[in-house]
C-alpha cells in the first residue's frame, strides 16, 4: 500500500458521496474548523460534490489568519531592529501588517528566516550568542507543544538571547463564541484532527451537549473529510449531538498528555484578540510567569504601533463563516495572493486563498 493512498482512493470517495446522498435529507450546514481541512475540501472540490443544498461553512482555524494585526506589527518592529534574527514558520512571512510584511522587510535587509521547527531557532540562539533570536510562536493547540518544548530547552541551556513572540489561540472558546452568536448557522462541526491529537476531545463534550451540536473529530485527507461529513450528517438526521471520532488513527479521547503537560508548564490561558473576530475571553496562551523572561514583547519595547485594517476587507465575516470570500468586493481585484488585503488571502489554508487558488469566482461559487 502506498503512502496515504488508502485515504485518497477515488472509488471509495464516490462510494462515500453516494452514501451521503442517500443519507442527507436536509440542506445541513456543517463547519470544518481547521484551515487544513478547508484546503483539502476546496482543493479536491469536495464541497461542490455534496448533495443538493448542503453547505460547508469554512471555519476560523487558520492560524495565519487569526493572528492579530497588532502582533504582526510588533513582529515587524522587532524584526527591523539591528542584531535581531527573526524566525517564523514560512507562511507568516507574507501576511500583511499595517504597513508592510516580513518578506518585504527581509528584502530591505532585516534578518528574517524561515524555520521548520522552533528548535531551529533555539539552535541558532545557542550558536550565535551575539544575536537576539526571536521566534514568532503562533498557531492553535497543534503548534503549542513544540513551542513550549523550545522554551523549556532554551531555559535548560540558560539562553539569554532567545525569546518568543506568543500569539497562541485555542479552539474550544472560538467554537463557543460562534455558537453564542445569534446569527450562527452552523449545525455541526468537524473538529480539527491535529488539535485533538494533542488535546483529545473531552473539552468538546460539554459544547456538544450544551449547544446540542454534533462534533466529529476529523482528519485531513479527502476520505477523512467525506467520512467526517457523513458521520455529522447521520447524527443530524437522527437527532443526535455527540462528539465522535473519525480520525481514530491519530486521536484518542485524552489526547497526548505529555504534550499537554509541556504546554501547561510554559503557558497560561489568557484573553486573546482574534484577527477579524475580536477579543474572546480565555481563548489564547501566553507565557507563564516562570518563563516571562523569554517573552519578546517584554524584551523589546515596541511603542507607537498603530494597527489599522483595510476597510474593504471582510476577513472577519469570512472567518466566522458569515460571508464567502466571493462576497467581498475586493476579492480577486484589490485583494489577491499577490496583494493580500487580509490574512485569509495569504496562507493556502486561508479560505480566500483556497478559493482563489481553485479559481472560484462569484458566479461559480454556489456553496
Amino acid at each position: 500500500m502506498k503512502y496515504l493512498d488508502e485515504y485518497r482512493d477515488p472509488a471509495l470517495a464516490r462510494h462515500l458521496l453516494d452514501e451521503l446522498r442517500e443519507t442527507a435529507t436536509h440542506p445541513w450546514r456543517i463547519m470544518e474548523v481547521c484551515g487544513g481541512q478547508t484546503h483539502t475540501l476546496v482543493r479536491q472540490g469536495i464541497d461542490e460534490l455534496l448533495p443538493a443544498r448542503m453547505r460547508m461553512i469554512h471555519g476560523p482555524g487558520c492560524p495565519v489568519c487569526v493572528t492579530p494585526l497588532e502582533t504582526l506589527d510588533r513582529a515587524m518592529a522587532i524584526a527591523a531592529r539591528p542584531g535581531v534574527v527573526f524566525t517564523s514558520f514560512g507562511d507568516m512571512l507574507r501576511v500583511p501588517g499595517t504597513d508592510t510584511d516580513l518578506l518585504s522587510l527581509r528584502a530591505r535587509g532585516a534578518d528574517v528566516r524561515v524555520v521548520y521547527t522552533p528548535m531551529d531557532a533555539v539552535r541558532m540562539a545557542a550558536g550565535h550568542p551575539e544575536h537576539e533570536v526571536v521566534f514568532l510562536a503562533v498557531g492553535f493547540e497543534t503548534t503549542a507543544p513544540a513551542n513550549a518544548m523550545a522554551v523549556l530547552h532554551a531555559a535548560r541551556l540558560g539562553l539569554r538571547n532567545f525569546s518568543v513572540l506568543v500569539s497562541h489561540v485555542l479552539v474550544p472558546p472560538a467554537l463557543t463564541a460562534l455558537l453564542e452568536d445569534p446569527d450562527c448557522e452552523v449545525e455541526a462541526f468537524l473538529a480539527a484532527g491535529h488539535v485533538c491529537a494533542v488535546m483529545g476531545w473531552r473539552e468538546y463534550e460539554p459544547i456538544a451537549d450544551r449547544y446540542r451540536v454534533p462534533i466529529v473529530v476529523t482528519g485531513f485527507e479527502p476520505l477523512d473529510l467525506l467520512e467526517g461529513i457523513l458521520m455529522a450528517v447521520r447524527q443530524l438526521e437522527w437527532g443526535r449531538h455527540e462528539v465522535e471520532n473519525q480520525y481514530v488513527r491519530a486521536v484518542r479521547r485524552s489526547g497526548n498528555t505529555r504534550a499537554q503537560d509541556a504546554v501547561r508548564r510554559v503557558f497560561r490561558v489568557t484573553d486573546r484578540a482574534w484577527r477579524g473576530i475580536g477579543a474572546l475571553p480565555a481563548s489564547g496562551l501566553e507565557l507563564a510567569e516562570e518563563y516571562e523572561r523569554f517573552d519578546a514583547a517584554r524584551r523589546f519595547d515596541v511603542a507607537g504601533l498603530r494597527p489599522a485594517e483595510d476597510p474593504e476587507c471582510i476577513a472577519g465575516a469570512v472567518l466566522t463563516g458569515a460571508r464567502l470570500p466571493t462576497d467581498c468586493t475586493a476579492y480577486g481585484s484589490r485583494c489577491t495572493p499577490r496583494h493580500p488585503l487580509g490574512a485569509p488571502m495569504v496562507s493556502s489554508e486561508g479560505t480566500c486563498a483556497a478559493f482563489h487558488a481553485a479559481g472560484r469566482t462569484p458566479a461559480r461559487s454556489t456553496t
Partner: protein
Amino acid sequence: MTIDCPTPRHEDEVVLLGHGAGGRLSAELLDQLVLPALDGGGGPLEDAALLPGYRELVISTDSFVVSPLFFPGGDIGSLAVHGTVNDLAMRGAWPLALSVSLIVEEGLPLAELRAVLGSLGKAAQNAGVPVVTGDTKVVGRGAADKLFVNTTGIGRRHGALHPSAALARPGDTVLLSGPIGLHGTTVLSTRERLGFESDIASDTRPLHRLVKALAPLGAAVHVLRDPTRGGLAAALNEIARDSCVAVEIDESAVPVPEAVASACDLLGLDPLIVANEGCLVAFVSAPAADDALAAMRSVPEGTEAVRIGEVPPHGPDGRVSLRTLVGARRIVEMPLGEQLPRIC
C-alpha cells in the same frame, strides 16, 4: 485600534526573492521591467531562442545559484550542464557547445570547486557536448553565496521537430516523461536538513536523448517544456497562455513519488509547483500520442512516461484545470512566488 491609516501600503519597489521563483512574480518582472528595456516581448517566452539568421540554430543561457552546492542526485556543476542542455532540447535541438562562467566567493575551499568542476566536466562528457569557452571571476566574501555558475549553449534542431510553447492545439494529448517533485524537495530537504534527503534524490539529468527519440514524430510534437522553477503548474500555465488554449489534467495520472508526497504534505507544499530538473511535458497531436509515449519509454529517461491530460476542444483560453481524485474539477493557478511552507 485606530483607523488613521486605512490602506496598507505594499512595498514593491525592491526585488523580492519571489521575483526569481519562476511564478507570477517572475513573469511580472520580465513583462514590466526586463523585456521593455530590451525591446523584447511580443512572442512567447521560450526555453531557448532561435539564433537570428540561422533557422536551425538555437541559443539558451541559464544561471545556477542553487544552495547547497551538493545534494543527493547531483550538484551545481551537473545541474548547470543539464539545465542548459534541456533548455535547448525543449526547442527540439541537440546541444553543439556550451560556455561556462563561474562567479566564486572568496574563501570557497578549492576542494569544493574542484569537485563541482569535475562533476560539470563529467556531465558535459556524458551529454556529449563540449565546453568551448568560459570565464572565472572571484568576488569578496559575502558578495556571492559560495559559487554561481552560468552556462550558455548553442544547439541544432532535429529535422522537422520545431516545438514551441505557442503551438499547443485543441485535441492535443499531454504527456509527462517521469515523476515530479524530486529536485525541489531534495534541495529544500538538504538545505534545511529536514531528513527526507535520505529517501529521495534530485532527478537532474539531460533530456536531449529523450527529445531525439521524439524526433521521428516531427511536427506532431507541438510543445516540449521541462517544468523547472514553478513546477508543472507553471509550465502548463505558460503553455496554456502562450498557445491560447485550455489544458486539463488528471490528478490521479500525475506520478508523484511517495517520498515527495509525504515531504510535501509535511511541509505544506504542492508537488505541482515543486521544481524538476529531469522530466518534460510534451503536447502531441492525439493520433501520434501512442507513438510518442512508446518513443519516450524507449529511452532510460522516459521509462515512466505517462499521459496526464489533454487540450479540450473549447477553451477557456489560458486556463489549466485538474480533475481531482474525488472527481471534482479545480483550477491550477500560476504559482505566485516563493513557496512558503504552511504552519500545520
